[in-house]
């Protein structure tokens, strides 16, 4: 190719770029009202989500609350090194991840199945009743739920009595004292509380599926199970993926309410989670820096998990990412 061709190509490129900018600003101007409408929320995000990140500097200081920023002593990665050398931290991390994976597995698959079942119920009144009953526990506080479960599982509690009557147990079992049961108990309690509530969004997605698709499937001779497999499930695929990514991003942020309320000293090795650890060894002993270091660690893990989940979903979803 000749030189001129190259030059003209470059010229063309510059021109195109200019045009592009022009068009960009034109569009911007045309949509100015839309941008104005977005502005308050943008400000909100910056003020409440980005500015607080400044507080992360705390993790690198020997932070004392009554000193100003310039008076703090900088300690570098001291608290991170300490964090990664603490054996208890790994124990707590394990508990956090295991319990959150369990609740993801159960708290995600069961609501989908439940939503499909409810949708298949033809009797409207019965359907509505079940739905309402199933999401009522969501409004019960964890304090009460923990109380119910500890009483259910006590030595003289109904579960033990039932198992004894049925002859499945010879002696009552202290369920709450066995560390290896704790994860299961938390997961079941969580499932009981949130099953109905979590299924609402899937139910909404199912309802919005075009009725014609079902009719067409019926024409083709699909039975109820076939219809679920070929119409319902593909129909709610996007919602399922979005929910999955959102819950994976929050894997490490499981809070500590349930664990804190259900635990006792005998199962501490299985019940302590990251947030509680940060509270006890960060804030409670005035090591704000250490608590912040745990927080940063959590954020980094969350971001990584989110990106991984998004890529995986992209693979499954014919190359379109949800995010």
């Amino acid at each position, binding site marked *: 190719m000749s030189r001129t061709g190259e030059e003209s190509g470059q010229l063309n490129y510059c021109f195109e770029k200019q045009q592009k900018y022009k068009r960009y600003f034109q569009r911007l101007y045309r949509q100015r009202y839309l941008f104005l409408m977005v502005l308050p929320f943008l400000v909100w995000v910056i003020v409440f989500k980005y500015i607080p990140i400044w507080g992360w500097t705390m993790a690198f200081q020997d932070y004392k609350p*009554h000193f100003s920023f310039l008076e703090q002593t900088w300690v570098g990665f001291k608290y991170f090194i300490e964090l990664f050398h603490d054996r208890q931290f790994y124990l707590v991390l394990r508990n956090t991840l295991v319990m959150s994976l369990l609740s993801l597995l159960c708290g995600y698959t069961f609501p989908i199945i439940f939503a499909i079942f409810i949708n298949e119920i033809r009797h409207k009144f019965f359907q509505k009743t079940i739905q309402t009953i199933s999401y009522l526990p969501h409004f019960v506080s964890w304090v009460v739920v923990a109380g119910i479960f500890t009483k259910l599982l006590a030595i003289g509690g109904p579960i033990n009595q039932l198992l004894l009557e049925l002859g499945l147990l010879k002696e009552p079992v202290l369920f709450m004292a066995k560390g290896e049961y704790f994860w299961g108990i938390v997961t079941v309690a969580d499932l009981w509380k949130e099953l109905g509530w979590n299924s609402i969004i899937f139910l909404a997605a199912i309802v919005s599926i075009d009725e014609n698709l079902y009719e067409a499937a019926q024409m083709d001779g699909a039975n109820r199970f076939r219809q679920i497999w070929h119409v319902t499930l593909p129909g709610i695929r996007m919602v399922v993926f979005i929910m999955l990514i959102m819950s994976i991003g929050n894997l490490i942020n499981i809070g500590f309410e349930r664990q804190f309320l259900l635990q006792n000293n005998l199962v501490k090795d299985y019940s302590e989670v990251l947030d509680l650890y940060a509270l006890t060894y960060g804030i409670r002993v005035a090591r704000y820096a250490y608590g912040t270091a745990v927080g940063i660690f959590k954020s980094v893990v969350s971001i990584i998990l989110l990106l991984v989940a998004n890529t995986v979903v992209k693979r499954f979803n014919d190359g379109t990412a949800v995010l």
Partner: protein
Amino acid sequence: MRTRRALLLSLVWIVALAGLGVCSIIGAQKPLELTMFSYDINPNYTGFEDPIGREITKRTGIKLSIEYPVGDPEERIMLMIASGEYPDLIFHKGAGKFVDAGAFIDLTSYIEQYGANIKKLYGPYLKRMRYDLNDRSIYYLGCYGVDSQIWDVSGFELQHAVVKELGYPKMETLQDFENAIKAYMKKYPTIDGRPTIGLSLLADDWRFLISVTNPAVAATGAPDDGQWYIDFETQEAVYHITRPEEKEYFRWLNHMNALGLLDPESFVQKYDQYKAKIAQGRVLALTDQRWEYEEAERALRQAGKFERTYGNYPIVLDERFKRPDLWDPGYSASWGVGISVNCKHKEEAFKFLDWMASDEAQVLVNWGLEGVNYRVENRKRVIPPAELEQKNNDPLYIKKSGVGLYVYPFPQRGDGLVDPTGNTYTTLTKDFIKERYSPVEKQVLASYGAEMWMDLYPQSSEFPLKPWGAAWQIPTPMNEDFTVPLQRCDDLCKKRIPEIVLADPSAFDRLWDNFQKELENLGIHKAEAIFTQLIQERIALWND
């Protein structure tokens, strides 16, 4: 039409403005509202709207709006310090964090200027309230009754039915205690159709300290110094769980568990489950403090099951030891109410605290309103029988009347102290305690040759003076070398002790030794050294 509307509008404006003006004039006479944080929750708090609260406002022009912590008060405090948003008054249990953060004002000059009542109330103890050797400011006014008599003991509890059934056996050592539980349990495997429980412990969160570890200290004759045991000769502090004597106490618990005399749910149950079991009347023995099991016992009293309520016995590990329950630690003056730097009305706040220390206020908060809650007959304060009946049996009495609501944590005269009129400042007297005993309780006491439970215990005159007061009140520094190992050790105790008690007796020694080694590895000796220094500094501060 238009002018009329304009006129009307301006009229509305004028009325509104006038209203505002009137409001602001009235507002000037409205009480000054001070905010306060209280470390301890008080379910009876009414927002200062009960008769006594209103009376205090009437006499001082001040109204308190008190915030109580939800959950762990330490965490609330740490967040308060991090944000620097302090209320006007702060009731703390450990001033260290606040003083480190510069949250309190020094009250010394205020006490000089306006503190006549405070000086009178605290007397020689004012000097104990100075912060430490380097900083002799007074940052707070100590809570708890000054020079209080101890008449009410807890100790180890046994149902009256048990001792009655067994013919009032000698109740001195753990062996006696164990024998009684064992014999009764064998005779009555069920009570009211439910399985009998021998000894039940409570390990729910911090209550672990009250019902599991503190009894080990008391049963081995040591005074309550929190997590510490302080040697009288050397004045050196050790983490009390490391004492060999206490190992024997836990060996006994382990043995009780092996015999099936210990409630298997001891380390699992929550506080409400524990109370429910006690209220069913099927727990024979406790190692608890009265304020913790009182509520459940009240249910038993209301149901008329007096033989299922508890007597208090001075049980020790063996004859070498003396129960320390009546050992008076002396006024320790390290928890209390301070005024924060953020307070805009420091002088008014201080004058309010000083008024609370006056005789007038002490009588008001303890006895209530004259002619309503008490009468004066022949210069003696008397609570009318109808009022007394309510006071003893109505759970809502405090909330409704406000009597007793504002005693703690403000400056307070101790039980048994007499005011210039010859009456006690508080309503608690020996006779008052005796009047509350049930007939069954009186019968049991008589069989043991005592009038009150405290008669069974070694008397306070038998114990030496504690030169450091109560060590659990000593403010600790926010020093990582101290707080972190201590937090770790406290957490480890909560984990290991239940495991060890529930283990097979043959494994006890091995597990206990491992536990002690773990404590050492967590750096308990470093924390001990720091605390020893704090103790010695405190003794120096109090004596100079």
